[in-house]
């Protein structure tokens, strides 16, 4: 009798978990999608920005305004096509290895979907290319420097917010390409959030189904794809942030050379980059963790599930 009762309880718990995990799975899927879209955007704009100078030269020697844009779209198209084929191919391979059957309509819809997404993501870079002023090329600098904050504002920031001039400099360089920075921040936020939610879900599940055969089976069935998704999202975030820094490095090559030329020691320059990385990581991750914690609090309160002792 006790045995039957226990069985019922565990089955009930797993059903409930399954329901919950279906929700989280959808959430996860969307988050992974958003993070990878962000990655795509950052990559494409860095691609465009690395060719800014070339496009300005071509425009000066007489290419019509849309030709550089066309060239860029073609590039992206080729990348998306190759990437799409490789991705679908490896996905099919994995499905084959697991022994499952692929959902063919979805497989066939994926490639046009990828191409469409890639083209949508070219809009922002195209705008940048379109606004290039070839006349600036003659004047030597292709760096489109935005106007610096006035000395009065710098003074205010330093004295009211107690920010040192050095930190202010770091902050300003991180925010220099604010579009890309905010995407990277968003990815960091989502990844941190997802990681916490997933770990919590798995822990809760493990507690409620400890020891039963069915529980272990269910855990393996659902936790593994969930974890894979989270790892995917984190990987993309990592790439996102790396991309951002590589890009800034390239754009600031001269600045780095100059700083060293006027006598900065190399590690001082490196420290500047590390500091920027840490700043960015904190700005993205801490809100993500706090947000996840808040969600968990809400969840545990309304559903009277287990306490989140681990947080």
């Amino acid at each position, binding site marked *: 009798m006790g045995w039957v009762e226990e069985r019922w309880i565990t089955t009930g718990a797993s059903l409930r978990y399954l329901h919950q995990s279906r929700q989280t799975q959808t959430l996860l899927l969307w988050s992974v999608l958003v993070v990878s879209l962000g990655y795509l955007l950052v990559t494409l704009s860095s691609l465009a920005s690395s060719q800014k100078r*070339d496009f300005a030269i071509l*425009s000066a*020697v007489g290419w019509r305004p849309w030709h550089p844009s066309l060239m860029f779209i073609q590039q992206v198209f080729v990348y998306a096509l190759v990437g799409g084929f490789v991705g679908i191919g490896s996905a099919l391979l994995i499905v084959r290895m697991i022994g499952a059957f692929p959902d063919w309509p979805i497989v066939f819809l994926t490639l046009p979907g990828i191409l469409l997404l890639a083209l949508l993501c070219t809009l922002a870079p195209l705008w940048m290319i379109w606004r290039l002023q*070839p006349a600036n090329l*003659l004047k030597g600098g292709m760096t489109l420097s935005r106007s610096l904050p006035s000395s009065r504002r710098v003074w205010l920031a330093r004295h009211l917010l107690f920010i040192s001039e050095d930190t202010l400099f770091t902050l300003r360089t991180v925010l220099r390409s604010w579009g890309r920075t905010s995407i990277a921040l968003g990815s960091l936020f989502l990844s941190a959030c997802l990681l916490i939610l997933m770990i919590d879900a798995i822990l809760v599940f493990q507690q409620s189904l400890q020891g039963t055969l069915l529980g272990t089976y269910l855990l393996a069935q659902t936790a593994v794809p969930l974890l894979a998704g989270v790892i995917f999202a984190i990987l993309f975030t990592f790439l996102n942030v790396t991309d951002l820094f590589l890009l800034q490095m390239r754009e600031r090559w001269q600045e780095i050379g100059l700083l060293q030329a006027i006598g900065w020691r190399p590690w001082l320059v490196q420290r500047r980059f590390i500091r920027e990385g840490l700043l960015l990581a904190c700005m993205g991750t801490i809100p993500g963790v706090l947000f996840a914690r808040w969600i968990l609090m809400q969840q545990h309160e309304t559903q009277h599930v287990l306490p989140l002792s681990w947080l």
Partner: protein
Amino acid sequence: MHKQQNSVSEAAQQRAFLQVTNLRKAYALPHGKIDILDDINLQVQQGEFITILGPSGSGKTTLLALLGALDTPDGGEIWLDTTPVHQLKAVAAADFRRRQIGFVFQMFYLLPNLTALENVMSPLLPYRREIDFNLRERANNLLERVGLGHRTGHTPGRLSGGEQQRVAIARALINQPRVILADEPTGNLDPTTGEAVLDILRELQQTGKQTLIMVTHNPQLASGSDQQIHLGKQ
């Protein structure tokens, strides 16, 4: 009265090959507008060699950008033959640059991922269907003439400064422009290399009967030109 009208229409007919009248250009700065070019007038005949001189910041580059339709003036007119250069925008400006103008920049501005030959071909690459000659052949010829026939497959990173500028000269001539605009083309080269590059540029310009307008800081070179334009600091 009658006579005056006559002279006006005559002037219109006898407009110089390149005619600049009352040209103005100002830039908006945080503390107000500043006139860089103020009432510039020029008359240039076909095949002439013109030098532009003046202190740094006097607007030499700005004037060159206006002449090449890279920028639009705030006032005045620029006529190249029958083309109102001052009115050209976007597509029309690009077509004008591709058909009539060859640029040579102080910093070469070659495309780093293309070979010397491809760089020379680059202005016309998307327009191959509109041209009636063999682009590759012409590019090869030009590279021969600037003395780089044996380096056509090299990327700019593997060429010296003087060689890069010679590639840039070949690129400026690929469209057989009527006007060559050069902004301190030897500014980044040592005197001997610079002289050699100038000789090549002058020779090609004279055989092609092109008008050459060059910004320079070299008074000796300027004294050998057909016309000197002195810009003063505003």
